[in-house]
């Protein structure tokens, strides 16, 4: 106690002496005051170790990409319109990252009370951003720790609009060592000249990670949900946009710079989204009312200009009520040739949210057009109807229509949900719809893709050229009436001819249907027999499960009791292992049976299917002296199109039993190998064995019904112990399953140490399928 008092006095006098100096060392003042305060008898205070920064940064923010995406979100939250990220010399550790935005910036108070204050609550208190009322995206107070996570040093240069200087703050994270007091570590704050009107620049030096193009793109994808495909600045060409608080949208540009080279764009809207469009379809109507459209595609080398009129059949008829309209649409085709898989998923996700053609009137977005579920241009419906075949749903477009409407030809409904559907609006719908479909057909023609169901291929394998009449989607009542009258037009003879054609077609269809029906009935009766067998097996497997648990328990009990009786014990151990492999064998069927509870089909992961098959069949194979080699996969991503898992079980089991029989006939040292991979968008399986092979000429027959390798004349000849006999149905069923999914199954030439190889090919899962099943 005595000691401390002395110390307290000492500290006091030190502080007083120092305070009389002309030049104050604020760090020392703070340190002394802390020490004095710590000696107060009746009260204690928390102190914070500087190591907390490290804990919160490196340990809280696990992944580098997350850290950067948090910083981009901060810019978004600060009502920034554009943020640029430049990764300098980032191919090795120690590079520099510059994040530059044109957001609000921070005043000195905001910097001190916000950024420099740990666990600030400002984002919690203000969930919406100040000017544009954005839903704030950043996580509460994680930003600055992200910075620490990323690099060793940080410089913040920030300026606000109504101030005539900028602030520059330098932080060296290495100063924040463990076992020092967080509150006494000072950071340099300077007042510097403004470099722009407002905004914040973060310079992170000594990056802790390498940044490849792929990881930079990943950041872009993480933040893509706050970036809109079109921002108002893209759209609005008029200056009559006087509301300052309309959100102009948010853009992010990602650059990479090595040494003194000029920076290259790694990711931005153009690289990540627009460049992948197959075509750009644009249209506009000027004062004359005639629509002009252009279709451009670098990928397909299309460059077309055309006219479009109010009458689908006459392009010289002007749109009477349309003026000063323009639109632009990026067209995406989800086909691996045209859209790399890597980007397809993210673009599809974006399109699910933002797809369709948005409508802007006098600089304001009009809802609900192109909101998810809205189909104002009849694209989804038209795509479903399939009178026009190439992809053209809302999901395939990102675009907007801009109308300048000083005369108020378009009126918003009183509920402020959309525009009144007057003639002007109908013409707008027709114009945009027909232009887009024209573009879609043009692209399909260049790609040599079937455009309408009746189109045929010519001798060269190309689709004949056709001109498709694109109908209006919106019509006035008079127009509808006219259309109807023309269709039913007075000429009686033509009517009769038409009826005859229809009648003939129906009769032909009927005959076809009857012959098909016969086949179906035959096949169905076979299936009935098989399914009842299947049901019995199911029942059996379920029932014996109970007994098996008991037997297992009984065996292990007897084993423990027979301690000492070697002969009996030995025999029992054999029984135990026999029973074990029996249990293994049935467990496979048990899995298959219980899979039947799941009725829906989904993409199948071949690694799982084949691995689990090999694992369960391994002990059975070993008993038969067959080596089931470890399966080979060409890669880790092998998903077939949606199937039922038990179908694969059945296919693999059939192939396996066939191989087993072939090996027993050949009396060879059996070997079975399953290989799986991907080729030309098909998943293939090659099932090889070294059995007695398939006789030449029978390669096709083996897939027929009741083809067996051993013929039996009468039931009496059936030897119960012989496994060699089959019903001849196995491969037929396998083939049916594969064919059911438009797959292929055939005998291919076997590799060196094998004699037979059966190859199955099945379509791989599409991105859409995987998406739907959450994979």
């Amino acid at each position, binding site marked *: 106690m005595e000691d401390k008092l002395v110390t307290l006095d000492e500290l006091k006098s030190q502080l007083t002496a120092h305070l009389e100096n002309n030049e104050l060392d604020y760090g020392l003042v703070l340190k002394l005051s802390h020490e004095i305060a710590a000696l107060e008898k009746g009260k204690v205070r928390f102190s914070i170790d500087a190591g907390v920064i490290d804990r919160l940064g490196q340990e809280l923010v696990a992944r580098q990409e997350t850290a950067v995406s948090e910083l981009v979100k901060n810019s978004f939250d600060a009502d920034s319109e554009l943020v640029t990220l430049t990764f300098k010399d980032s191919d090795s550790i120690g590079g520099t990252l510059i994040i530059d935005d044109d957001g609000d910036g921070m005043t000195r108070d905001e910097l001190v009370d916000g950024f420099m204050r740990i666990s600030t609550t400002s984002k919690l208190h203000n969930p919406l951003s100040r000017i544009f009322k954005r839903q704030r995206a950043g996580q509460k107070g994680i930003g600055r720790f992200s910075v620490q996570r990323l690099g060793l040093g940080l410089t913040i240069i920030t300026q606000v609009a109504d101030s005539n200087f900028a602030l520059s703050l330098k932080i060296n994270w290495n100063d924040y060592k463990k076992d020092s007091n967080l509150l006494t570590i000072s950071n340099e704050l300077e007042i510097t000249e403004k470099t722009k009107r407002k905004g914040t620049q973060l310079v992170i030096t000594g990056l802790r990670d390498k940044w490849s193009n792929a990881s930079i793109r990943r950041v872009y994808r993480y933040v893509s949900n706050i970036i809109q495909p079109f921002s108002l600045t893209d759209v609005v060409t008029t200056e009559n946009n006087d509301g300052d608080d309309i959100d102009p949208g948010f853009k992010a540009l990602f650059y990479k710079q090595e040494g003194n080279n000029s920076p290259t764009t790694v990711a931005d809207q153009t690289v990540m989204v627009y460049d992948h469009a197959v075509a750009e379809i644009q249209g506009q109507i000027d004062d004359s009312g005639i629509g002009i459209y252009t279709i451009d595609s670098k990928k397909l080398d299309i460059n077309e200009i055309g006219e479009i009129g109010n009458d689908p059949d006459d392009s010289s008829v002007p749109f009477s009520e349309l003026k000063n309209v323009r639109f632009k649409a990026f067209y995406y085709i989800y086909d691996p040739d045209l859209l790399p898989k890597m980007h397809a998923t993210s673009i599809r996700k974006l399109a699910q949210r933002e797809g369709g053609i948005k409508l802007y009137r006098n600089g304001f977005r009009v809802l609900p057009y192109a909101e998810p579920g809205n189909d104002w241009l009849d694209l989804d419906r038209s795509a479903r109807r399939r009178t026009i075949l190439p992809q053209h749903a809302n999901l395939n477009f990102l675009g907007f229509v801009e109308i300048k409407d000083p005369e108020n030809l378009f009126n918003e409904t009183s509920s402020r949900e959309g525009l009144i559907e007057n003639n002007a609006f109908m013409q707008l719908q027709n114009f945009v719809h027909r232009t887009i479909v024209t573009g879609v057909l043009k692209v399909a023609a260049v790609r040599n893709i079937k455009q309408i169901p009746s189109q045929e291929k010519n001798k060269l394998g190309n689709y004949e050229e056709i001109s498709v009449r694109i109908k209006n989607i919106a019509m006035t009542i008079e127009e509808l009436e006219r259309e109807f009258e023309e269709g039913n037009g007075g000429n009686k003879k033509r009517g009769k001819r038409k009826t005859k054609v229809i009648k003939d077609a129906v009769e032909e269809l009927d005959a076809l249907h009857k012959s098909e029906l016969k086949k179906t009935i035959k096949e169905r009766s076979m299936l009935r027999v098989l399914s009842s067998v299947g049901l019995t097996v199911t029942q059996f497997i379920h029932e014996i*499960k109970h007994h098996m648990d008991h037997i297992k328990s009984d065996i292990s009990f007897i084993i423990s009791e027979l301690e000492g009786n070697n002969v009996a014990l030995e025999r029992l151990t054999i029984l135990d292992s026999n029973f074990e492999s029996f249990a293994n064998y049935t467990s496979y069927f048990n899995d298959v049976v219980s899979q039947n*509870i799941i009725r829906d089909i989904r993409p199948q992961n071949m690694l799982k299917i084949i691995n689990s098959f090999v694992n369960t069949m391994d002990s059975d194979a070993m008993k038969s002296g067959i080596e089931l080699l470890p399966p080979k996969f060409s890669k880790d991503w092998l998903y077939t199109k949606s199937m039922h898992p038990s179908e694969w079980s059945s296919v693999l089991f059939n192939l396996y039993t066939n191989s087993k029989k072939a090996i027993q006939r050949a009396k060879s040292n059996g070997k079975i190998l399953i290989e799986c991979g991907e080729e030309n968008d098909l998943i293939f399986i090659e099932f090889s064995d070294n059995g007695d092979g398939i006789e030449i000429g029978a390669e096709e027959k083996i897939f027929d019904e009741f083809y067996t390798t051993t013929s039996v004349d009468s039931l009496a000849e059936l030897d119960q112990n012989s496994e060699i006999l089959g019903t001849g149905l196995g491969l037929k069923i396998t083939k049916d399953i594969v064919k059911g999914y438009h797959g292929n199954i055939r005998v291919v030439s076997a590799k060196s140490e094998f004699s037979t190889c059966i190859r199955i090919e099945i379509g791989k899962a599409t991105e859409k399928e995987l998406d739907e099943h959450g*994979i």
Partner: protein
Amino acid sequence: MAYKIVYIEDQDASSVIHDLSPCDLDVAHCHPGTFKETITEVDSHKPDLILMDFRLTQGGSEVNAPAIAQYYRSLAIDDSNSCLPIVLLSNDSKIRGYYDDFTSHDLFDFFIIKEYLSDKKEKYSLLIKELIASYKCISTSQIENQDLVDLLLIPDKLEIDIDPRIKETLRSKQYQSNVYLASSFILNKIVKPVGVLIGEDVLSARLGVSKTSNDWGALCKTLKNYEYTGLYSGSYQRWWAYGIEVWWKEIIEESNHLRRFDSEGKLKILQEKFPTLQLQKVVGDPTTKTENFWTICQRNFLPIDPGEAFEIQSDLTLMPWLDTKYYSYESIRDYDLIKELTDIERARYKEMAKRS
């Protein structure tokens, strides 16, 4: 005195009875009939615990297990003394789906797959006994108005670091009056999952030392002070997660956080501290690349680095004091677990797998 168990089973029950009886459990078989008959028979045995098969209707019962369990659970609302532990025993592993559903309806304490019972009868009989003892312990504590938190036996040193919400929950009125709730909270939200407590695998991952090391046991002994000794510690060997960090700082005298080292680094520090111990480095599955292990893969239970592994989408029941769960790349690949990941992780996995 052996505990009394009633086993409700519509089929042959002798093997299960033979399995459990040597483990000091007195098992009576109840063949289910009508609902009333079943209840009457169960009650006549005055059991300490009810064990039941899931499907009972095939052998003549009117209802399946949940209805009977429901009856006993609702009985306990009026009289907390009559609260009985109920364990589900089934041969159908697919029941797990239903089971997960029923836990939310507060029905079963535990689920045993029949197949594993005879293999691990010591483990399961221990758990059954501990369940009964814990029920009695909680019940006494509640009647005497004692703090349920005491049952966790938190070491004094760690007292302030334990998530206050754990204490709040156990002290809330509902938990102070319902034995089943309190028991399942302690078992399922504290003892079993990785979070405030960690098991041997996670401990091995965090220390960077293989469990198969000759002196693993000796190393664990140095952690004795932080071994969990509260309710259910008989069946589950656990350590206080934060205790390990205290130990690292105070006993190992290393000021840098445990998480900052890879296995190599941790092993080196440990060997300098305990030169006589024979310790080996722990290794992850073949697809792991870094060694900053912190937790384990939920599928193969091998150590993983959370920075490298893939985060599992957590359900709503994840308590704030529990750790995020992860799968390793290999597990996702071989067992088709991609669906269970969070959105961002799914995309990351997909990219990696496609590049493979």
